[in-house]
């Protein structure tokens, strides 16, 4: 054991490895911060370069890009409301309002702190609990997934904004949009309107960029106040009380990220929204969320970075990739002649320890690179808005094209931009639509798969995990709805009081 550890450290402590991590994180932060160019893409493009590197160095390069990319997404999410990676969509909810009132620096800093802490927690979970977590993850079949997704969908309640009814409609429309494309089971066309481009479904990065970033662009030109506002130059920093207050949120978010990351297939976007919803539910001031609440940024960023390390758990412990990024990393392992999984823990344990050491170092590197990046990126907030806004549109157009090299995606992006603007006008939150869109296919696939496997509805209550998530779903619905109704009643009462007072003064 000790031998293996020291062998692993020996394998790790080379200049090359440190350079690989540094370069990886820097590439990741840069690519991640550009909407449309995702961490996944960056990892895939870097894969060929790893062929010629030693295994540890190559894998650490990819891991560095992955982690940097997940954080990098938050930069554009906060500064221009265009999530650089899908996982940063949730960060826009509070990060962008903060930036608009001149606290971009503070929001970015909190995003970095939350990311790094979550990253460390996620790494620790990977190092110490991989075996245990992996054996639980393997118990997830279609019915278990179905209930886990059902539970995750209940967060729509907490991210619906001012109107719960409209938020729910938004979420359902999201699920409906996700059914467009070729049917999973029969391969038939659904709602493609015989348009060839829709056969692969609606691209979720164009949808996301359009829905979040474009309404800002439209609003700038159509709204009176838009022209007058200039962003304040930004010197704000996270204060110690703010950090201390956010710490429980960060830890909670990290754990949610670890939990969702270790089950293959759910992903960082859902984790950040779940973390956000829980933070809002736990807060004494849920009404501040969505208006520039620093804990909202902390929750979102800890949720998505918590996933980053945890997705490596099923990969390393079982050899099962949890998402596209880990699938690419699996490819890198295979091309080096290595097979992740239980055997690797027997045959190449020194290599595993070297990777662990590298991942801890990557968290530190992320912190250093992140601080540097923030200092420079925060200046974007100083660009006059009449110049910044057209730039945002250009990035959105180029970025959504880059996802699949299709002009059709640009059209999709613009269409969802208009939809997002209309939704804002009728007071309908757009975050539930995104959540519905992301979780919808998982929900439906696992519903149908459960039927295919068992041909019997009893399959949905087949295991303790099912029961656990059924209980969690019911509880979350009950608590969530009750809380929303209470706060709605409170708001109404206050409003009535205000009305009375107004009347009194005019008489």
């Amino acid at each position, binding site marked *: 054991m000790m031998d293996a550890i020291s062998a692993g450290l020996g394998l790790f402590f080379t200049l090359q490895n440190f350079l690989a991590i540094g370069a990886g994180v820097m590439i990741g932060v840069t690519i991640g911060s550009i909407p449309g160019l995702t961490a996944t893409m960056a990892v895939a493009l870097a894969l060929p370069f790893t*062929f010629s590197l030693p295994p540890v160095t190559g894998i650490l390069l990819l891991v560095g890009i992955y982690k940097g990319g997940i954080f990098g997404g938050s930069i554009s999410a906060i500064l221009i409301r265009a999530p650089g990676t899908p996982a940063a969509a949730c960060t826009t909810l509070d990060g962008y309002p903060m930036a608009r009132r001149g606290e971009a620096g503070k929001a970015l800093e909190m995003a970095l702190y939350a990311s790094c802490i979550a990253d460390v927690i996620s790494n620790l979970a990977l190092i110490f609990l991989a075996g245990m977590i992996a054996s639980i993850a393997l118990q997830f079949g279609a019915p278990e997934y179905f209930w886990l997704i059902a539970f995750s969908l209940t967060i729509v309640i907490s991210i619906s904004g001012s109107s719960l009814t409209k938020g729910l409609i938004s979420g359902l429309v999201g699920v409906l949009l996700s059914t467009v494309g070729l049917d999973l089971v029969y*391969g038939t066309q659904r709602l493609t309107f015989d348009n060839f481009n829709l056969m692969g479904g609606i691209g979720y990065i164009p949808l996301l960029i359009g829905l979040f970033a474009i309404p800002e662009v439209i609003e700038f030109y159509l709204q009176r106040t838009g022209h007058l506002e200039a962003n304040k130059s930004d010197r704000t920093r996270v204060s110690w009380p703010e950090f201390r207050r956010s710490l429980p949120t960060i830890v909670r978010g990290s754990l949610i990220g670890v939990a969702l990351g270790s089950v293959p297939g759910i992903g960082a976007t859902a984790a950040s929204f779940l973390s956000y919803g829980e933070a809002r539910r736990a807060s004494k001031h849920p009404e501040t969320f969505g208006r520039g609440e620093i804990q909202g940024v902390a929750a979102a960023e800890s949720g998505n970075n918590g996933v980053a390390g945890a997705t490596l758990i099923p990969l390393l412990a079982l050899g099962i990739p949890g998402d596209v990024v880990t699938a690419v990393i699996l490819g890198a392992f*295979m091309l080096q002649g290595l097979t992740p999984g239980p055997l690797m823990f027997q045959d190449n344990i020194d290599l595993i320890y070297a990777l662990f050491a590298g991942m801890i170092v990557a968290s530190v590197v992320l912190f250093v690179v992140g601080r540097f990046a923030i200092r420079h990126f925060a200046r974007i907030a100083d660009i006059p808005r009449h110049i910044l806004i057209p730039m945002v549109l250009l990035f959105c157009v180029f970025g959504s094209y880059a996802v699949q090299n299709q002009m059709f995606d640009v059209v999709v992006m613009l269409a969802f931009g208009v939809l997002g603007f209309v939704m804002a006008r009728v007071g309908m939150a757009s975050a539930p639509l995104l959540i519905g869109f992301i979780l919808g296919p998982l929900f439906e696939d696992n519903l149908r798969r459960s039927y295919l496997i068992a041909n019997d509805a009893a399959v949905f209550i087949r295991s303790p995990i099912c029961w656990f998530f059924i209980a969690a779903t019911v509880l979350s619905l009950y608590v969530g709805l009750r809380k929303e109704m209470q706060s709605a009643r409170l708001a109404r009462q206050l409003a009535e009081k205000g009305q009375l007072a107004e009347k009194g003064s005019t008489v």
Partner: protein
Amino acid sequence: MTTITRRVATAALAGIGLGLGFATGAYAADYPAKRVTIIVPYSAGGATDVLARQVAQGLSEAWGQTVTVENRPGAGATLGTAQAARARPDGYTLFMGQVSSHGIAPAVYANLQYDAKADFVPIVWITQIPNVMVVPKDFEAASVQEFIDVAKGENLSFGSSGTGSSIHLSGEMFKSRTGLDMTHVPYRGSGEAVPALISGDIDVMFDNLPSAMAQIKAGTIRPLAVTSAEREPSLPDVPTLAELGIPELEGFEAVAWFGLLAPAGTDPAIVEAINAATNEVISGEAFQTYAAANGSAVVGGTPEEFATFIDGELTKWADVVEKAGVRVE
């Protein structure tokens, strides 16, 4: 030096081309005179993409010209394939074809936007990967014959990476040949399906060898047979389906394969040039190492051989699809 003059020449030609409304002509003699693009109808990072990048790198070195990979994913590879079919046939846009685009999809989808034969000229067959019939480690059959005995009269399920994939249709082929009643359970990618196989939610899968290899080595799933014509060097003890002496499985062959094609109308001399260069690249050490690590067999050969092979594939899969009744109108 020569590249600079070529660039100037190209630019000048382009200027003339602009005015006259046609593009720079491609002449086999100085091919390639500019960047060559290989269209991959899948996302970056997938098996086809990685292979294409490997080939692109080799060709770049051989030609001293950039060869880039362009990912055009969507609609189960058919979107990118249709775009490649419509590309200018000047030899500067190539296509990484595979069993989906030029084997299965034409049989499965009625409203395809390309004609696998008429819209393309085959250049070279690059690799092939066998599928492997795998069961969970506790499954009560040690051989294919035992599997058939167990499955008779029962409704077992077989998993796949998606409807219309080679994994799905290998299963359908097995099903229709043996007359077993098996339910198809589609996942989105092998990465999702393999865990379901490990935990026994699905009973069998005809997975591509590379995605099953990790679990076979770890012993969590058991290979019963491979679907290629010959045994797989990395699994020497595993029989092929065809060699088992089970009459229904006589001549059973289903592999995933990859090869370069060009849009129809490309100058035959250019096709020959690319064929020669690619054969050179894939017989090189770098590519051989890559293929071995990846579990794929390097094929190579002439454009004619590849064309014959594709014809056979189209016929075979059309037959399987018809028997299985999985055609999508």
